[in-house]
């Protein structure tokens, strides 16, 4: 706590001192901006003169990218840039989480599903001119899992720990064949390979830039990186040597506009061609504007409030599993009332989720009763959700020994996320609902980085969070968010610290088999157990919505909210 305060102060002071520098910088970039892209425009012209004007597509993002190394990003903003620069061995079909060949032309699974041999596409070049081959694939994987790899030190590789811990190694067979070896069968591995984490990066580019490679990306994708002006924009240009047809867009610019109203206004006046996260309150205004096109579909996500049930474990050897010598211990945010199932159930009964979804999500979401989206394999529709029943809540509180209620602190997210557009408003509604049954809720807000750090360390009593699916596999929800293995203090994904080892058995069994029916059965069982445990108030599955100018054609929403601009063109 103290540490982050001190760093905040230092940061603020540093910011203050940097202000004049920033002003100078800003004014200088303004002058340079029109000049810089010029050489890029000119380069392709002598080869094939284009009578048509340049196709430029400007996208209004809600924030800037953090890094531009696909294996080392976790946030949606960085990922949407990555998805247009890099490609993996396999990729998702348009608008679905089924996979199809990409940089690998075919693959074969053998040895009980623990070895996968990939045949690689020939004649593909990275943006820096290097050939794509088996060495590049091995490089992209090995730097993440091998601590002795010279490039391992340049990243955190967070997603490798979340999703690829079953991978043993990747080996080269010949120049265009590689073999992925798993420690044990993993039913979600193929869909996971279509994630940004396993995108193939150019080894020679990584060598050239070393620790700065994260800001100089070079992949094989439809667009190549041109420039990054921090907190302002990132420019990509069409890759003329793309192995598929050249993209129709000549340039893609991601502009950072944090305020949703400002984003919409920029779209209305034509400064940008598309925006993300429109404010649900503006939907009527958007629909009534014939120049705009609102695209919306159920998102693969969950927004919830988690109650810290008090006991997690410290993952000393960082293997992502709770070993027998890793005992349960109190989390820093241990709070007696929340350790009681009846209190948690009372809180479930006290919150009117339907009203929150109807009025605060303004109908752009559906009420959640399980921790994963309804369209996924293994969703348990038989679970009966807690209804809104304040009297029942008061009764349960009395039975639990808190007839007069208690005081509790709620961590409230400071930023808008795809699964929760306005967290402070939802937090205030929850505060008000719980106030009605005698539970006084105190607000606690910190900056987003600290928020994640504190909740991962279990310092919260109650917190609001959510998840957007990465690969369309139920394991990506059930194990990451609710699995006892993720109840590790310091790197928790299971923010209620649900630690029933029996549930982990079902989750493991679901991953070890490739039989879909069998997997679904296991996940359904765990959802029942989670419902009784009542550690999470599942609030909503939010729709994902993007708004485009009507002239923009060809965009297809993807369930994971990833943004692929390759097929897009401007009329």
């Amino acid at each position, binding site marked *: 706590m103290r540490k982050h305060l001190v760093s905040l*102060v230092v940061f603020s002071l540093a910011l203050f001192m940097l202000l004049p520098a920033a002003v100078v910088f800003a004014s200088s970039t303004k002058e340079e901006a029109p000049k810089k892209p010029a050489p890029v425009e000119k380069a392709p012209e002598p080869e094939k003169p284009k009578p048509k004007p340049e196709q430029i597509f400007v996208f209004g993002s809600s924030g800037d990218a953090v890094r531009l190394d696909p294996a080392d990003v976790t946030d949606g903003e960085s990922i949407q840039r990555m998805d247009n620069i890099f490609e993996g061995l396999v990729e998702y079909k348009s608008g679905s989480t089924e996979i199809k060949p990409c940089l690998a032309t075919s693959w074969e699974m053998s040895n009980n599903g623990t070895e996968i041999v990939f045949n690689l596409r020939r004649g593909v070049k990275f943006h820096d001119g290097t050939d794509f081959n088996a060495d590049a694939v091995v490089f992209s994987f090995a730097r993440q899992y091998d601590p002795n790899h010279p490039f391992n030190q340049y990243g955190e590789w967070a997603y490798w720990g979340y999703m690829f811990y079953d991978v043993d190694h990747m080996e080269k067979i010949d120049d265009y064949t590689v073999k992925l070896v798993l420690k044990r069968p993993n039913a979600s591995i193929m869909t996971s390979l279509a994630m940004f984490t396993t995108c193939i990066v150019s080894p020679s580019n990584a060598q050239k830039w070393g620790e700065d490679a994260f800001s100089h990306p070079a992949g094989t994708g439809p667009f190549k990186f041109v420039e990054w002006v921090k907190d302002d924009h990132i420019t990509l240009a069409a890759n003329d040597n793309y192995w598929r047809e050249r993209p129709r867009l000549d340039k893609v610019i991601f502009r950072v506009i944090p305020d949703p109203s400002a984003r919409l206004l920029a779209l209305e006046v034509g400064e940008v061609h598309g925006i993300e996260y429109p404010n649900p309150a503006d939907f009527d205004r958007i629909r009534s504007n014939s120049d705009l096109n609102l695209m919306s579909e159920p998102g693969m996500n969950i927004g919830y409030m988690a109650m810290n049930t008090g006991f997690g474990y410290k993952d000393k050897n960082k293997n992502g599993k709770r070993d027998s010598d890793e005992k349960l211990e109190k989390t820093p945010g241990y709070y007696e009332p929340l350790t009681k199932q009846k209190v948690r159930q009372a809180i479930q009964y006290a919150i009117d989720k339907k009203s929150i979804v*109807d009025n605060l999500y303004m109908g752009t979401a559906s009420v959640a009763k399980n921790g994963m989206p309804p369209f996924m394999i293994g969703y348990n529709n038989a679970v009966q959700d807690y209804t809104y029943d304040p009297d029942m809540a008061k009764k349960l509180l009395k039975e639990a020994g808190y007839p007069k209620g208690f005081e509790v602190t709620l961590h409230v997210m400071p930023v808008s996320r795809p699964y929760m557009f306005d967290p402070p408003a939802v937090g*205030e509604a929850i505060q*008000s609902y719980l106030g009605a049954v005698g539970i006084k809720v105190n607000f606690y807000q910190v900056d987003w980085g600290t928020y994640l750090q504190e909740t991962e360390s279990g310092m919260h009593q109650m917190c609001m969070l959510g998840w957007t699916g990465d690969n369309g596999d139920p394991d990506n929800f059930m194990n990451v968010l609710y699995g006892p293995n993720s109840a590790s203090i310091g790197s928790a994904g299971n923010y209620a610290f649900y630690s029933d080892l029996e549930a982990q058995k079902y989750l493991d069994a679901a991953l070890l088999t490739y039989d879909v029916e069998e997997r679904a059965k296991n996940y359904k069982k765990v959802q029942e157990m989670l419902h009784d445990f009542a550690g999470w108030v599942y609030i909503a599955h939010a729709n994902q919505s993007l708004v485009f100018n009507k002239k923009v054609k060809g965009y297809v929403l993807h369930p994971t909210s990833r943004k692929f601009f390759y097929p897009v063109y401007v009329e």
Partner: protein
Amino acid sequence: MPGKPLAISSRNYLFRRFTDNRSALFGLCILVMLVLCAVFADFIAPNDPNPTPPDLAIKLKPGFWSEEGVEGMPLGTDALGRCVLSRIIYGTRVSLSAGLVAVGIAMILGICFGTLAGFFGGAVDSVIMRFVDIMFAFPALLLAIVIVAVIGQGLDKAMVAIGIVYTPQMARIIRSSVLYIKEMEYIEVQQAIGSSRLRVIFRHVIPNSIAPVIVYGTLMLATAILDCAALGFLGLGAQPPTPEWGAMLAKSYSYIVSGAWWAATFPGLAILFSVLGLNLLGDGLRDILDPRLKQ
């Protein structure tokens, strides 16, 4: 008017000067209204500012000017279906008390440091005044944000932060008038008859140098309310569900584009009028109390 004595008692004279000053009167009226709102909020406000459980279904409804409005919500509702008018009325209590506490802290600290520096002079004066100079180098709001970052967020902390930020200004004003008072003959007399320094300071120096503090304090109250609202706007001041004007503004401004202008506009107007009123009053007081401005 012949026959009447020219000499008017000083109290009557000040009172007439005040009533002649229209803008000061206007300021005073606003202040009185604010105080009444703050004290009698429980009776004036038509609704509970924080109803539990919330009635989310009536969120962002317009007020009396529209047919879509909800009965009993004259200025409409905010994003959580709460009465904007009631929240503004309760917000008066929050803003006024925050401003008063902040200015109070600044006055107490300012008087201590200012008197020390002015009365003792020399090294004490240099040290305190150089420190004050350093504090002046930071923009007030930025400094307040830094202090809040150190001591934590919340309305009480915000008051302390603003109080600390305003201390140097107070200290300077006190110091200058102490420097002036210190040289007066009656102080010399006191020292000559052997009064203790403490007695001189508390009985004679401070009471005589307090007049500018009152004027300046009134003006400062306005900026304190504004800064408090700014901290609330940034989420560093009052925490939900406290109905604080700045926080109300911050939570509602994104709905202006979608047509619900009232939720942000009225708290904004409340800030505007209270700051305006206090500024007018402060200016008026200065005109009246400053002997050099007598006609």
